[in-house]
C-alpha cells in the first residue's frame, strides 16, 4: 500500500509541494475531527438539555411559549418529587431491585463463567447457545407467563420478582462478559494454585476473583444498565409496593393534561444514577462493551 507515493521522493517542486500539503493536512484534519465530534455531542446533549430546561420551568412558562432557557427558574418540580413519598419511593424501589438483581446475577454467573472458560463438559456448547437465546427473547413474550408465574408463587409486587425476572437476560449477559475476561487469564495460574494446595473455593475467592476485578466491575455496570433501563417487565410485575419510577411517571398524566415540569424533572433524575455509575467504570467500559474479547 502507498508504494506509488514512495517513488516521488526526488525533491523537485511538485513533490515538495505535495509533501508540504501532507504536513499541513494533519492539523486541519484534527480540527475537522473535533468539529464533527462536537456536532455529535451537541446532537446527544440537545434533547437532554431540553429536558433539563423544562424541569426548571414552571408549568405556566412551559405552556406559555417556547423559551430557550428557564426565565422563571424554579425547583418546585424537584421539591415535589423529593417530598412526595409516592415519587421518591419509585426511585428507591427501582434501585432496590436493580441492586438485588446485580447481586444474584454476579454470584451465580461467576462460577458458571469459570466453568465455561476452563472446562469441556457434556452439552457445554449447546448450553451456552441456549443461554444466549435468552438474551434474544423479547420481554413482551414473557409478560403474561411471568405475571401468572409470580402471582402463583406469591411474589407479585415484590422487589424479588423484578430482580428474578431480570435474571432472564442479565445472567446470560454476565456469563458472556465474564467468560471473555476469564479466558484472558492464563490457565497456569489455576494450576500453580492447585499445586500449592489451594482448594477450589479458596483459590476462586482469594486469587481468581481479584485477578478479574476490572472485568467484574464492568459486568456489574452492564447488569446495572440493563436492569435499570428495562421497564416493561418491571412495571407489569409490580402494583404499589415495589412500583418502579417508570410506572410512577405515568401518573403525571392527570385530568388537566400532562404535568410536563414534573415529568421532565423525574426524567432528569433517572439519568443521574447512570452517569455516576459510568464515571466509576469509565476506564474499563470500552473493553467491557467488547465483552472482553477484542
Amino acid at each position, binding site marked *: *500500500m*502507498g*508504494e506509488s507515493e*514512495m517513488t516521488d521522493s526526488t525533491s523537485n517542486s511538485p513533490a515538495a509541494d505535495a509533501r508540504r500539503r501532507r504536513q499541513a493536512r494533519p492539523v486541519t484534519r484534527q480540527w475537522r475531527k473535533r468539529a*464533527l*465530534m462536537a456536532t455529535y*455531542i451537541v446532537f*446527544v446533549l440537545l*434533547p*437532554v438539555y*431540553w*429536558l433539563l430546561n*423544562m424541569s426548571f420551568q414552571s408549568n405556566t412558562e412551559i405552556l406559555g411559549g*417556547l423559551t430557550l432557557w428557564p426565565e422563571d427558574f424554579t425547583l418546585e418540580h424537584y421539591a415535589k418529587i423529593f417530598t412526595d413519598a409516592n415519587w421518591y419511593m419509585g426511585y428507591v424501589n427501582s434501585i432496590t431491585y436493580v441492586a438485588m438483581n446485580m447481586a444474584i446475577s454476579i454470584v*451465580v*454467573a461467576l*462460577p458458571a463463567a*469459570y*466453568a465455561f472458560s476452563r*472446562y*469441556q*463438559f*457434556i452439552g*457445554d456448547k449447546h448450553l451456552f447457545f441456549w443461554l444466549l437465546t435468552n*438474551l*434474544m427473547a*423479547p*420481554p*413482551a*413474550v*414473557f*409478560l*403474561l*407467563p*411471568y405475571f401468572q408465574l409470580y402471582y402463583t408463587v406469591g411474589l407479585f409486587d415484590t422487589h424479588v420478582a423484578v430482580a428474578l425476572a431480570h*435474571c432472564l437476560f442479565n445472567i446470560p449477559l454476565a456469563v458472556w462478559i465474564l467468560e471473555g475476561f476469564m479466558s484472558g487469564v492464563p490457565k497456569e495460574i489455576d494450576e500453580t494454585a492447585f499445586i500449592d494446595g489451594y482448594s477450589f473455593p479458596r483459590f476462586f475467592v482469594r486469587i481468581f476473583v481479584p485477578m478479574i476485578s476490572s472485568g467484574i466491575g464492568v459486568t456489574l455496570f452492564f447488569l446495572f*444498565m440493563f436492569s435499570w*433501563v428495562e*421497564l*416493561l417487565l418491571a412495571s*407489569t410485575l409490580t402494583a404499589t409496593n415495589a412500583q418502579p419510577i417508570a410506572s410512577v*411517571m405515568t401518573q403525571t398524566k392527570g385530568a388537566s393534561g400532562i404535568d*410536563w415540569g414534573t*415529568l*421532565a424533572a423525574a*426524567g432528569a433524575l*433517572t*439519568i443521574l*444514577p*447512570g*452517569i455516576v*455509575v*459510568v464515571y466509576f467504570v*469509565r476506564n474499563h467500559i*470500552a*473493553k467491557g*462493551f*467488547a*465483552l472482553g474479547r*477484542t
Partner: protein
Amino acid sequence: MTKVRNNHAWWLILPMLLLVAFSAIIPLMTVVNYSVQDVFDANTRFFTGTEWFREMLNDPALQAAVLRQFAFSLTVLAIEVPLGIGIALLMPKKGWQASAVLILVTMPLLIPWNVVGSIWQIFTRGDIGLMGWSLRELGYGYNITASPVDAWATIILMDVWHWTPLIALLCYSGLRSIPDAYYQAARIDRASQWSVFRYIQLPKLTNVLVIGVLLRFMHSFMIYAEPFVLTGGGPGSSTTFLSQSLTTMAIGQQDLGPSAAFSLIYFLIILLVSWVFYTAIMNMQKDKPDGGV
C-alpha cells in the same frame, strides 16, 4: 486455550442454570401450552393443535407489523453501524477529553427506555419542543400524530440517538486494541487514511461489529417502550411494532391462545435471523485467514 474435559464443571453451572430455567423455561412452557389450546377459564380448555399458528400467520395486521419491524430494524442498522464506526474513529484516545467524551457518548444508553420516549416527546412536540417548534418555524408542517412519515423519521432519529453509542463504544474498544506499531508501519508506507481504515482498522473491528450488529438487531426487534411513549403506535398503526402488537393482544384483549402462538413465531424469527447472521459472519471470517481477532 485448550480446555480440560471435566463433567464436574456442571456443579459450577447448576445454580445459574436453576435460576435461568426458573425465569425462562417455566414461562416458555406456559406459552407453548397456551399456544395449542383454547382457554375459556381455569377448567374449560380445548386442544386446538396448530390452529392459532395458522390464524396468526394469515393475519394481515400481523404480517404488516412483521414487515414494519424488519423495515425498522434494517433502517436503524444501516444508519447506526456506519455512524457508530465514524464516531469511534473521531473519539479522542487520551486525556480528560477521552473520559468526558466517553461519559457523554454512553449517557443515552443508561436512560430508562420510557424516559427516552418522554425526552423525545418533549423535544419534538410542536408547541413546547425545541425540534418540533423549530421545524414548524422553518415552515415545515411537522406533526408526528398526523403524519406517518414524520412519526417514522422521529422514531428512527430517536433510535439513532439512543443506540448509536453502543456501536461507537464497541468500535472504540476494538480500535484501542490495535498496537501503535501498525500505525507506524502504515506511516512509513505512507498509506492513505482510507487504506489505514480498510486494511488495519476495519479487520480489527470485525469481531466487535458482529457483537454490535447482533445486539442491535435483537434489541431493535424487541423495541417497545420508546415508540409506545412517543407515538403510541400511531398515527393509525404506522409505528406499531411487534412487541406492541403482542402486548395489546395478550394484556389488552386477553387472547391467550393466539398471542402465545404469536409469541413463539416472534421469538423464532429473532432466533433464526440471529443464527443465520452469526453463522454467515463466522464463515466469512474463516475464509480469510487474517480476518478478525
